[in-house]
């Protein structure tokens, strides 16, 4: 079926089956920053923002996203403060999970501009980084929060 939605502020029309996930449809449409790792919503590698809220695109059936406004990591501007903070403190290793972390952090900071360390950790706890970059990821989010203020 044809599904119309907006991705990174551009209209996008995708062909997808009703029993396919939004993740598969997005990847086929070229938005490959969202990635399949666990397929059950626990790792966050497939995170995208739907109407500015992070969701697991592996747990959304594609037609359910019709009409939604989706943000993927590809849509970030070069001066995005969260992305820049991740660059500045080298808050990534292999990078596979990084788009999911950046988007989750962006959503946190738009909801809670001045988060405590505990709020940062709780907001990010559903995103897994197997390389173990957590120390620097938390630092990047603190720096991003300060730079936005």
């Amino acid at each position, binding site marked *: 079926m044809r599904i119309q939605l907006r991705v990174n502020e551009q209209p996008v029309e995708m062909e997808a089956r009703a029993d396919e996930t939004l993740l598969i449809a997005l990847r086929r449409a070229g938005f*490959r*920053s*969202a*990635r*399949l*790792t*666990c*397929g*059950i919503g*626990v*790792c966050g*590698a497939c995170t995208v923002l739907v109407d500015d809220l992070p969701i697991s695109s592996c747990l959304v059936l594609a037609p359910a996203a019709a009409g939604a406004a989706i943000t*993927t*990591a*590809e849509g*970030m501007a*070069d001066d*995005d403060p969260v*992305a*820049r903070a*991740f*660059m500045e*403190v*080298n808050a*990534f*290793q*292999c*990078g*596979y*999970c*990084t*788009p999911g972390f*950046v988007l989750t952090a962006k959503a946190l900071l738009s909801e809670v501009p001045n988060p405590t360390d505990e709020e940062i*950790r*709780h907001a*990010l*706890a*559903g*995103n*897994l*980084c*197997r*390389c*173990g*970059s*957590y*120390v*620097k*990821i*938390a630092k990047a989010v603190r720096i991003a929060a300060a730079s936005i203020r």
Partner: protein
Amino acid sequence: MTLDARITGRIEYAQDQAVEGMLHARILRSPHAHAKLVAINTAALPAGIVCLTRDDVADLEPLYGPMVKDQPIVARDRVRHVGDVVAAVAARTPREADEALDLIEVEYAELPGAFDPVEATGDSAPVIHEGLEFPPDLRPDGRNVCHRFRLRSGLGRDGFAGADVVVEETFTVAGAAHVPMEPHATLAYWADGRLHVITGTQTPFNVRRDLAALFRIPEDMIRVLVAPMGGSFGAKTFMRLEAVTAALARKAGRPVRTVLTRAEEFLTVNRHPARFHIKLGASKEGTFVAKSVDAWWDTGAYADCGPSVCTKGGYAAIGPYRIPNVAVDSRSVYTNRPPAGAFRGYAATQGVWASERATDLMADRLGIDPLELRVRNLLKDGDRFATGEVMKDVRFADCLKAAADAVSWSDGRTNKGIAVMLKGMQTPSRTGAALEIDADGRIVLRSATTDMGQRNEIAQRLLAASALGLSPGHVSVGPNDTDLVPFDTRTTSSRSTFMMSIAIRDAAADLRAKIADRLEIAPEDLVLDDKGAGAAGSPSRRLAFTALAGLRGDGSFVTPGGLDPDTGQGIASSHWHQAAAAAEVSVDSETGVVTIARLHTAVYAGNVVDRPGAELQNEGSTIFGIGTALLEGIVFDDGQVTNGNLSDYEIPSILDVPDFTYDLVEGGEHSHGLGEMAVPVVPAAIGNAVAAAGHLVRDLPMTAEKVVDAKAAR
């Protein structure tokens, strides 16, 4: 500032590689742990589906494997583990390939299985492989044993006669999953009479060699291109999907890409489950007198690198101690479980767990501070290790002291634990590197180090730039293509920074000599800057790099060594990874939940090349250790993995990681790899802390339930 492609998600990993006309592959896997493969019927497959079964590989070499040739591309007459590859299909879409799998009928005749590495060596256990040829340096002594590593020094087991106190205990470590976020992925196609493989691998030259042998073609007819990996941690070593994908592409006459599912990851390669029996003897003053290590490693249905694991884990379990009498018997055993292979912390994790828990049992028995007991027995410069090699550049005591200080060890030891280790590096091994001046006058580094997120390119650009006296921006790293890069043993065992730092310096010296030659000056008079080359004291004698295009400097570094499999004597490692950890915990004695209050690792880094990279490697390594300590273990029901998903098999989240600290201990002449130093010591330090809290744990992971039971058992 342009954002890094890893942040915007535009980087293309192995799974993202694609070529025109590519088909998508899926693998049909055995549901049985051990069965005869009676018949395969593919008649129901629709046209357009390419299916690979045993009949399609009859013209190829039947078996492959990095140490023992024991693994078929697709099952021939038998399946040996749940998930063993029975057939593979390629179709235009992944969905079509998935649906095709359901149309293949397979008839099996089940056989009894072996699921325990000790029982598998018994006379009544089923024999898993028959008629294998083992290379001369392996010792397949006993039923289902693919290698037995033996070490004897001093009086061996007879040395216990001289001990006042002897402690002994059995320890186990569960199998674990690597969980790279990106699964295994390979694209293969045959073109221009050659096999092209684009793959996520740590071992491109092993893959090329093994593919050449399998397909009976010369190595130069194969080109392996390594794509960036979304993590590996040992999972993407040696042949994984390359052979089956190349065989499918051969049959299809088209490019084929295979990407595993998460469930398949748990059936493809894991960490070795291991059982250790450690016996340690000491004088009543606390001097170690004798130690024996008996180990059984469950290498699963195929040996993979199991013989090397049982060797390295065998000597790691001796520990960094001066012990006059040592006996090690370490066996790599086939079972009907998925293969076990390289895993971050390579064999040391298991060995150090057993060894360092036993060291604390001895301290407890003698009533000596565990730190003091260790320090009293640590190897020092000039001492001989049990392998006979002489230790140099020894930093164990520095690491141990830094770790102990960080948890205020001298203020009281309640709920605290420490651990120290030595871990070998791939030895013997060989590395080449080249530095070329391209047409634009830029320096291009040719290096086979593979990228799994360890910032190798950044470190190696820094090394090359520093050796040449240029800014790092002037050096780039060329594509990781076996057609273009000099041979390198592989990107494993945290060897790359150490080996490459020497090979790149060597290549830089060669390039400088060639540039000096072109300028007709002595190499010591050569001055390089980002614009070009000149001679000290004669400003007129200058050439731009563009005028030097095509010059190439070659460098290499070779480490000799290896151990005798019957005596364990020789050179285990060209240099040692040295690390210590200290932990302070609290244990909820009613629920068994362990909370880490303080954790510190101290690792010998030598000369740090890329500080953020060094920090990231050690932080990641520490977190891996926490996972192994408290969370991670594959659960089997006989041959079946029962927790093969990321809800049932959990890896640490940010909330599972306490604030921890670390020292990168610097000094010496060399740069050391930091990818695995903390992994083995962290579980042992936490385990010793949990034991100090009254819960005498023996088994990893220390789940809450096991911790509670360990209290009850005291």
